[in-house]
């Protein structure tokens, strides 16, 4: 049974896709009588099937070599495109995580989208996302990974733009699409440039090629820079990070998926490409630099946010930055572990805050407070999510960070410093959000705040359980790093940094001795962080401005010069006709004159050879 399911595991993306398609008929314009709810239920069933299928197939992959399926897609002169699928425990495991998280997010959405009519659109897009992500994990070809990433970019545009009657949603969907698109286009350049070098797009073949490749370092540097630009946009890394902040305008259930999984799709490609990327030391250090910048910058910005969702979105950028560092230092396993633990913890955090938003309406953390006694489930979920994300043993995030840090300890100790700093800052920001929402006294907006209905708390609790059990699961699969090989100093440092960040934050925000809202002594710094380093302004002043000016200039050239030249031809003909008609002036004598003139000139031309020379000699 398990073997059969394993052989047909490529069906998993199809289930989700079918679910997405089946949801469409319940759009308000098609089935007008039943309401939109069946769309959600159908999708839920299909996702459940996908999850069960992948989950049963997973044990059969254990300790088995990955096997590959190659389906011919297109064969033209000299180019054979194969849809390469790799079925390994990593890919099936990732599908379990994706389908599972999507299942929980969809159950959550049944509660959250209670008062919404747009279920068909919402659920079909969720199905599309699940299908795309599952296909991405199976896909073993760089080319088809790119294809799927582009589909997901379009999906992001549609999903963020779900409630398109709000103006901020429209601008954020636009930014999400364009920013990711720019990254994807650079990725396409890299994808196209690596083919002549390696002659293949198959990840395994690329890794083999990279092991022995002798390539010009400049060339390889450029290709690899293009290859990391795609994941940079996908993973919301500096400077392509604004879209994730703005994408928080979308509905929260989709945010669950985005924060945990969609953003990680870039990281997945990055991890798969690691053998190629390590060919260029320049690119490795660039990745470390980008990751460091994003991790530190993102965690600092997260501290200064007041929007409950944006606090979390910057942590996502931060953790993806850590994944960049891990891949940049050739630690694939740490990167994969980081993606997994981050996915569960981030989803739990978003679910918890979404539950708060649903009943408290405001997203402003400064207007919330004192919810702990009345919202214990959400609060507990938030705490576990936080602890699962930052380095707190024995939860998952600790092991991932520890693995990364011990790998860096010998070679690049300063990166361990960065890691510790990021951990302190993230611990601080998440605890701050917790204290502001759940701690303190109730404010006007959170005066009466009941706990959410079971559709929203059930997936939260299930995910809470998964987050708690993650270390056990990892241990049973012997995926946890061996304690003996790990650096205990680093472990202690991590624990202490977590304790430090959390305690400082709770003392500041729960204690009464600092007036709230907290003002930094240096106001511009606080604003700088709160406004995300003024990134929108930076975009508008640089890229947007130049493209805008250039397009206006081109438009002007087109209207004035190109159109003008063609119109000038017409105008000249019209003017010529208008002017030359006056040669027909009605005077018979003038006609006689022109006839004689013509005859005379023709005669002169014809007889020129008999007298022309003498005439010219005579004259000159």
């Amino acid at each position, binding site marked *: 049974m398990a073997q059969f399911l394993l052989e047909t595991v490529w069906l998993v993306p199809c289930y989700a896709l079918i679910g997405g398609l089946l949801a469409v008929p319940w759009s308000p314009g098609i089935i007008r009588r039943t309401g939109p709810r069946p769309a959600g239920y159908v999708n839920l069933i299909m996702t459940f099937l996908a999850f069960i299928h992948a989950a049963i197939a997973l044990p059969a992959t254990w300790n088995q070599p990955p096997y590959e399926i190659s389906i011919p897609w297109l064969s033209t002169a000299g180019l054979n495109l194969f849809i390469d699928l790799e079925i390994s425990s990593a890919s099936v495991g990732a599908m379990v995580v994706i389908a599972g998280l999507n299942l929980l997010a969809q159950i959550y959405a049944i509660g959250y989208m209670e008062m919404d009519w747009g279920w068909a659109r919402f659920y079909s897009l969720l199905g599309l996302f699940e299908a795309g992500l599952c296909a991405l994990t199976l896909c073993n070809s760089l080319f088809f990974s790119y294809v799927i990433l582009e589909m997901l970019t379009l999906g992001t545009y549609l999903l963020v733009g779900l409630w398109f009657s709000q103006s901020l949603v429209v601008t954020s969907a636009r930014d999400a699409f364009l920013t990711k698109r720019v990254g994807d286009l650079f990725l396409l350049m890299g994808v196209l440039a690596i083919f002549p070098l390696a002659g293949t797009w198959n990840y395994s073949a690329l890794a083999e090629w990279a092991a022995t490749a002798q390539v010009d370092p400049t060339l390889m540097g450029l290709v690899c820079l293009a290859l990391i630009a795609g994941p940079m946009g996908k993973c919301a890394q500096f400077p392509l990070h604004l879209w994730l902040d703005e994408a928080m305008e979308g509905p929260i259930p989709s945010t669950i998926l985005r924060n945990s999984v969609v953003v990680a799709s870039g990281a997945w490609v990055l991890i798969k490409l690691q053998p190629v990327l390590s060919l260029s030391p320049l690119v490795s250090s660039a990745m470390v630099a980008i990751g460091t910048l994003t991790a530190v910058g993102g965690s600092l910005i997260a501290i200064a946010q007041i929007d409950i969702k944006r606090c979390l979105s910057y942590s996502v950028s931060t953790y993806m930055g850590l994944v960049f560092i891990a891949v940049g230092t050739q630690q694939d396993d740490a990167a994969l572990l980081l993606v997994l633990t981050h996915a569960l913890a981030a989803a739990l955090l978003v679910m918890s805050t979404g539950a708060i938003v649903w009943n408290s309406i405001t997203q402003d953390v400064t207007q919330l407070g004192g919810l702990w006694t009345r919202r214990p489930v959400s609060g507990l979920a938030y705490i576990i999510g936080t602890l699962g994300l930052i380095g707190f043993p024995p939860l998952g995030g600790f092991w991932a960070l520890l693995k990364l840090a011990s790998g860096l300890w010998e070679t690049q100790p300063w990166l361990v410093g960065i890691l510790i700093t990021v951990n302190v800052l993230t611990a601080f920001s998440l605890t701050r959000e917790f204290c502001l929402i759940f701690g303190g006294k109730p404010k006007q907006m959170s005066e009466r705040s009941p706990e959410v209905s079971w559709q929203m708390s059930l997936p939260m609790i299930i995910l809470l359980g998964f987050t708690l059990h993650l270390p056990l699961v990892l241990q049973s699969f012997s995926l946890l790093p061996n304690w003996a090989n790990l650096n205990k100093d680093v472990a202690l440092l991590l624990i202490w940094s977590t304790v430090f960040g959390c305690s400082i934050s709770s003392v500041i925000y729960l204690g009464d001795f600092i007036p709230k809202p907290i003002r930094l002594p240096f106001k511009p710094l606080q604003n700088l962080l709160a406004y995300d380093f003024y990134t929108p302004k930076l975009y508008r002043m640089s890229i947007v401005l130049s493209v805008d000016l250039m397009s206006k200039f081109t438009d002007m050239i087109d209207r004035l010069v190109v159109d003008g030249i063609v119109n000038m031809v017409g105008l000249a003909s019209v003017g010529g006709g208008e002017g030359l*008609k*006056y040669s*027909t*002036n*009605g*005077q*018979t*004598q*003038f006609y*006689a*004159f022109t006839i*004689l003139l013509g005859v005379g000139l023709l005669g002169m031309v014809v007889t020129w050879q008999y007298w022309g020379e003498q005439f010219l000699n005579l004259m000159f």
Partner: protein
Amino acid sequence: MQLQYFLLLAAALFCIGIYGLVNSRNAVRVLMSIELLLNAVNLNLMAFSNYLDSTLIKGQVFTVFVITVAAAEAAVGLAIVLAIYRNRDTVDMEQFNLLKW
């Protein structure tokens, strides 16, 4: 006496005729200028006949025809001028510019 002088005289007469044809405002003077042109032609014909074809003198025969046809043409021309004059009460060539653009 050479042929060239006759030809030059005829050409001069032709040119004067052209000048009169193009410049006259009176329609009758235009007809008169046409007569000058025809006479210049006649001079040519006579000169060629005399110097180049003095035995068969075909040019002189031509000249007789030209004179005849010129008389007929002048008669028709004057009739046309009269017909126009009846309608428009003038023989000024510059008033006859109705067929323009």
